[in-house]
């Protein structure tokens, strides 16, 4: 049988099938493909899922029309951040043939913004220009004040390390050593005397008559020597006793040190509240700085990235896409013109928005971008938003600017302290904002000014005294001004905050805590004094008892020697 050849000459049937398949894909599958591709790219930019209800790709133009774009909140993926009803983009064929997206002209219409919610304390993957607070002095002070046992004196264990106790232990050891020494010396002298007495008795009858006188003299001399030794020991006991008594008296001098040590061991909030302005200011600034974070950490890297790892799909690694740039090569993405327009609907669902984006590209070193947006969102209670931005990296420089002014927007559930014992913050307020962000090379400046009016505070705690403290402190502050300034190398900028709220809370907490500390200090002093007096009494009693005991023994021994000596003196032959 003849082998069939490699070339299929009667390919018309297959070709027809392929053409029909291609046509079917173009009419039925291409839109879906464009939809998933755009959703994938926009999700990468947004940092959370972006869904598109419908996408239409028109070869005439070419043009892409996207309908009902829903942007989820990157921090709360279950929540919708905003929606755009329709986006229409006119593309350029030469760029499209090179797998690049150059948008000649585009429009976005009907923008919905959902109610503004405060961002979480950590933005996205932890990247934020607002420095994270490692010291929470306000929370610590609140926890301290809400603790009913906050000024209880520490247990006895805590006193074991105070200087007077250590000194007492030292003096006790010295007394024991001295008493031990005295006893040893006394015992030794007593033994010596006993042996001497025995020896004298043994030699009494052996001595010849002619030597008796000399013998008695020697015995009397020996007994006198023993007596003198006992007197020396008695003197030493008294002298050492006096030294030790003086040492016991010095324990009282350690009293202030005892108080210091005890206060150091009890963890008390610092009265300086150095970081309170930053703690409160950072929380107030965070919602506005979230926009700067998005601009700096999300938009710029997304635009300028040269590599994009793709998610695995159908069990296969999809690899990493590399983006090359060069002269005569259009940017990977270049929105030459985007007009955003949206008319406010009667129910307020749709915002009144007009905006303009020019030359937003993935190569800001080639094309400088300008963004401008004016918006009102009645339902979200956001009025007069004005956003101006510029991205310019041409000729090796970096000149990025972002300016945001909002005449009015709602602030809800802004917590300054959220611990098991206290939730304190702003329940609701109306705020206005002026924000300026400038980047030159790798350094940046942020100026932020915010005014909060009609402020309703939230103070939730089980501690009545604490609630009273905060209620009284916050009641006069119905309007708050907060200014924040950051300068330095990005992203670790140096922040300074000023706000009457932080000043007010600092003053009130300092007053309350000072009073608490004064009372607590007095109680510690009393207790320390009591303990030192007790220690002194114990040591003195112990020393006197031991010393008296030794001295009595010495006295009785001396008496015995005296008696023995007088016996020998009487027995001495008359000259």
């Amino acid at each position, binding site marked *: *049988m003849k*082998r*069939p*050849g*490699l*070339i*299929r000459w009667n*390919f018309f049937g*297959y*070709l027809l*099938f*392929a053409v029909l398949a291609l046509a079917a894909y173009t009419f039925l599958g291409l839109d879906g*493909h464009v939809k998933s591709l755009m959703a994938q790219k926009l999700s990468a930019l947004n940092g959370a899922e972006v869904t598109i209800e419908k996408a239409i790709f028109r070869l005439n133009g070419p043009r892409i029309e996207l309908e009902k774009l829903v942007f989820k909140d990157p921090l709360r993926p279950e929540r919708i951040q905003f929606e755009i009803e329709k986006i229409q983009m006119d593309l350029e064929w*030469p760029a499209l*043939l*090179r*797998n*690049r997206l150059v948008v000649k002209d585009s429009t976005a219409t009907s923008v919905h913004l959902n109610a503004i919610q405060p961002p979480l304390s950590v933005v996205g993957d932890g990247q934020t220009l607002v420095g994270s607070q490692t010291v929470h002095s306000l929370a610590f002070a609140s926890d301290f004040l809400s603790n009913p046992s906050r000024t209880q004196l520490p247990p006895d264990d805590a006193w074991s390390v105070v200087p007077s106790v250590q000194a007492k232990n030292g003096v006790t050891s010295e007394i024991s050593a001295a008493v031990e020494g005295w006893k040893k010396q006394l015992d030794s002298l007593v033994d010596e005397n006993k042996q001497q007495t025995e020896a004298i008795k043994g030699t009494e009858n052996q001595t010849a008559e002619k030597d008796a006188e000399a013998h008695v003299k020697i015995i009397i001399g020996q007994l006198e020597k023993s007596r003198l030794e006992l007197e020396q020991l008695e003197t030493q006991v008294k002298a050492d006793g006096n030294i030790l008594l003086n040492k016991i008296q010095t324990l009282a001098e350690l009293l202030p040190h005892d108080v210091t040590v005890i206060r150091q061991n009890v963890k008390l909030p610092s009265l300086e509240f150095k970081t309170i302005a930053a703690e409160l200011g950072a929380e107030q600034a965070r919602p506005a700085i979230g926009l700067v974070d998005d601009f700096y950490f999300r938009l710029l890297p997304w635009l300028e990235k040269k590599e994009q790892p*793709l998610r695995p*799909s159908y*069990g*296969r*690694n*999809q*690899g*990493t*896409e*590399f*983006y*090359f*740039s*060069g002269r*005569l*090569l259009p940017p990977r993405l270049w929105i030459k013109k985007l007009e955003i327009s949206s008319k406010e609907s009667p129910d307020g669902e749709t915002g009144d928005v007009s905006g303009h984006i020019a030359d937003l590209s993935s190569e800001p070193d080639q094309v400088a971008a300008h963004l401008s947006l004016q918006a009102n969102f009645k339902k979200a209670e956001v009025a007069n938003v004005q956003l101006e931005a510029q991205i310019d990296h041409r000729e090796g420089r970096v000149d990025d600017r972002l300016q945001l002014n909002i005449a009015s927007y709602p602030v809800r559930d802004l917590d300054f302290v959220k611990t098991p014992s206290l939730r304190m913050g702003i329940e609701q307020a109306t705020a206005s904002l002026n924000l300026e962000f400038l980047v030159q090379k790798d350094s940046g400046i942020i100026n932020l000014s915010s005014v909060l009016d009609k402020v309703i505070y939230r103070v939730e705690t089980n501690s009545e005294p604490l609630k009273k403290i905060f209620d009284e402190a916050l009641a006069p502050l119905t309007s708050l001004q907060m200014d924040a300034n950051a300068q330095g190398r990005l992203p670790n900028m140096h922040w300074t905050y000023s706000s009457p709220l932080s000043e007010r809370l600092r003053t009130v907490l300092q007053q309350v805590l000072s009073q608490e500390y004064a009372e607590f200090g007095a109680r510690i002093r009393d207790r320390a004094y009591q303990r030192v007096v007790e220690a002194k009494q114990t040591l003195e009693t112990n020393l006197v008892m031991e010393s008296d005991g030794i001295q009595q023994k010495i006295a009785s021994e001396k008496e015995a020697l005296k008696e023995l000596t007088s016996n020998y003196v009487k027995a001495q032959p008359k000259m």
Partner: protein
Amino acid sequence: MAIKPRYSSRSSFFQIFLALLWGSWLGFSPTWLSLQVLILLVALIFLRLPWIWMMTSFVVSWAMGAFLLDPLMDQVGKLLLRQPALDHFWTEMAKAPVLPWLHFNNSMVLGAFLLGVLTIPFWAYVAWNLRRRAPVN
């Protein structure tokens, strides 16, 4: 010694070889949304290739890629795309119309293509062996 025939095939060595190679290229490729895959599929209209060998090679290559070779292909692709010496070459490729749709800038696509090229001798050997074991009916 005569080789015992185990199956019969009317396809030539070249047809079997191309079928195996085509199948492996399609199997190694992580995505079918690229131009070279389209070219391979369109070429099938004009070329008469034994489907059984193409499907076998495709399934084997796909499984090898999914369970074993994907990391290797990815690393090879990244290595080539990150080479400073090749940067100019890739940029010129990107400038040309249509060529960027080959997705050569994807590390997996490039790695899979390179692996496909490197397996040519292997598939040639397999095709030769299959041809000599399969008498023409």
